C-alpha cells in the first residue's frame, strides 16, 4: 500500500460552509439519509438541499417529519424509505400525503418499514453486513407491500426471522452540539440512529451548534471522529424548529403552524419561495421567519 493511499484513508473532515458541503457532497439521484429522532434534526441542511435544487433523491429517514415534508413538497425526492411519517404532536404530513395520494408535485415511491427494522438496517450498514436480521413481521401486511422485507431461517434453530437489506446512504447528514477544530463531533441527549447513519454512509455532513477548542468529552461519550466525516459546518440553531439539548428547546408553534402551511399547495409553494429559495442561508431564513411571525401578529 502506498503512503498516499494511507493518507487518503485517514481523511479528516473539512470544516466548511454548509453551502459548499451540500454543493460538493450531495448529488442528484443520491440516496440521502438525514437523521435525528425528533432531536437535532438537520433542518438547515435540508433547506440547503432544497435551495440548491437537488432532485431525484432517495430519502431515508425513520421519522420523515416536517423536514422531509419540505423536501418532498419542493420536488427533491423520487423515493422515500421510512418507518413513521407524521407531524409529531400535530397530525399528518400534508406534502407527503399529497405526493403519495395525488403524485404532487411528483410521484413518490415509498418503501415502508418499522422502527426496529430500519434502525437495525442502519446498524447493518455501519457494520458493512449485507442485511439485518430481527424478530418481526410474522403476520403483518408490510412484507406484502415491501419486497425488501423477507424471511430467513435461523441456521441453528430453524426459527423464521425477518431480514432487511443494509442501508448504505451515499450521504448521511446529521446535526450535533459541538465539534472541535479538527472536526471531531460530540452529541448527547436523544441519539436516535445518528451515529449509525454516519458510519453507514459513503459521505457524511455534520452541522453543529458551535466549534470549540476542546470538546471536554467524558469517556463513553458519543463522539464521531473527524475521519468518519466528510464535512463539518458550523450552523448555530441549525436544528430549528426541532431542539438541540443544552442549547434551545423545540419550537412547538412552528410544528403547529406547519400544518396550515403544508395543507395548501399554493401557500406551501409561496412559503418555500420566500423562506428558502429567496434566502441565501439559514441565518437569513431565521430572520425572514421572524419577520413573518411579527407580521402575523399585527
Amino acid at each position, binding site marked *: 500500500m502506498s503512503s498516499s493511499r494511507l493518507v487518503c484513508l485517514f481523511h479528516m473532515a473539512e470544516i466548511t460552509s454548509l453551502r459548499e458541503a451540500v454543493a460538493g457532497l450531495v448529488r442528484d439521484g443520491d440516496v440521502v439519509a438525514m437523521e435525528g429522532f425528533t432531536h437535532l434534526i438537520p433542518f438547515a441542511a435540508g433547506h440547503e438541499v432544497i435551495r440548491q435544487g437537488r432532485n431525484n433523491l432517495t430519502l431515508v429517514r425513520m421519522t420523515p417529519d416536517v423536514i422531509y415534508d419540505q423536501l418532498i413538497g419542493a420536488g427533491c425526492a423520487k423515493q422515500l424509505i421510512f418507518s413513521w411519517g407524521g407531524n409529531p*404532536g400535530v397530525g399528518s404530513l400534508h406534502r407527503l400525503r399529497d405526493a*403519495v395520494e395525488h403524485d404532487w408535485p411528483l410521484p413518490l415511491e415509498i418503501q*415502508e418499514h418499522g422502527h426496529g427494522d430500519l434502525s437495525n438496517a442502519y446498524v447493518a450498514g455501519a457494520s458493512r453486513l449485507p442485511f439485518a436480521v430481527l424478530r418481526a413481521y410474522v403476520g403483518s401486511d408490510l412484507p406484502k407491500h415491501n419486497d425488501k422485507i423477507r424471511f430467513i431461517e435461523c441456521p441453528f434453530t430453524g426459527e423464521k426471522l425477518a431480514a432487511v437489506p443494509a442501508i448504505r446512504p451515499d450521504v448521511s447528514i446529521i446535526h450535533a452540539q459541538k465539534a472541535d477544530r479538527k472536526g471531531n463531533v460530540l452529541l448527547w441527549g436523544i441519539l436516535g440512529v445518528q451515529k449509525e447513519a454516519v458510519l453507514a454512509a459513503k459521505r457524511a455532513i455534520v452541522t453543529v451548534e458551535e466549534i470549540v477548542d476542546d470538546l471536554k468529552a467524558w469517556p463513553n461519550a458519543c463522539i464521531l471522529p473527524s475521519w468518519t466525516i466528510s464535512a463539518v459546518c458550523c450552523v448555530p440553531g441549525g436544528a430549528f424548529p426541532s431542539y438541540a439539548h443544552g442549547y434551545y*428547546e423545540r419550537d412547538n408553534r412552528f410544528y403547529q403552524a406547519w400544518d396550515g402551511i403544508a395543507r395548501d399547495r399554493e401557500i406551501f409553494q409561496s412559503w418555500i419561495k420566500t423562506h428558502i429559495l429567496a434566502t441565501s442561508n439559514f441565518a437569513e431564513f431565521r430572520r425572514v421567519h421572524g419577520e413573518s411571525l411579527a407580521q402575523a401578529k399585527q
Partner: protein
Amino acid sequence: MTATEYTTNEIMTIAAARLLKNGAVCFVGIGLPSTAANLARLTHAPDIVLIYESGPIGAKPVVLPLSIGDGNLAETADTVVSTPEIFRYWLQGGRVDVGFLGAAQVDRFANINTTVIGDYAKPSTRLPGAGGAPEIANCAGEVVLVLKQSARAFVKKLDFVTSVGHLDGGDARARLRLPGKGPVAVVTDLCLMEPDPVTKELMVTQLHPGIAREQVSKATEWEIRFAPELKETAAPTSLELETLRDLERRTKLAHGNLTAG
C-alpha cells in the same frame, strides 16, 4: 372518594392507567398510551419503568411529551440509549413487560392498522405508518391498546395489518412462535375489552359508568360480544382525576396549548 364529573376521555385514560402494575417495564407509544402510563406512574405505580422508542429508559417526564423524543424524557430518564439498542437489547431482548399502544383501526382479534385506510397503492387516507408497533406487538410480554371507540375504528376487516394482535384467533400466536402474549386488553372511551381465553375474540368485560351496551355495539362494526358477568368500571377517584388534570394543565402550559401525548 370518587368523582362524579368527568369526561369519557378521562375515564378512558384512567381505566388504562389502572391496568399497569407498579414495577412493570412498559414500552410506551406516544399520545393516549403515554398519558395513561404517566398517570399510572403518578398515582398507584411510582416504580413503573417507562421506555420510549427514541431511547430513554425509566423516563419520568414532568410534562407529557409532545413528540416521542422530547428533551424532558432524556433529562428525567435513568439512562438514554440509541434507538437500535432500544429495539435490539431491550425490546427484542425480552425486557419489556407491557407494550402500551394506540391504533387507528383494530379488528375483533385486536390486530392493528396504523398504515392506510383504503387500498395501499391508492389510499383514501395515508396514516403515519408502523413506527415501532410491529416489533412491540411481537416482543412485549403483553400488549394493551388504548383508542377511542367508533365503527370506523373497530372494523370487521382491517384495510392493512400493520402489527399483529391475535391474528385469526385461537392459538395463532403460539403456532407462529411469537414471543409475547399479544393484546390482553383494549381500553376505549366506552368500555374495556379483553380477548376470550380460547377464541381470542375481543369481548366487552367492563362498561364505563353510564354507558349502555347499545352504545358499544353501535360503535363497533362487527357484532361485539359481552361477557356474561359484565362489570362496571369504577368511577375515577378524586386523586386519579386531579392528578390527570394537573398533568394536562402543566403540559398545556409547557407546550403552548398543543395536544400532548
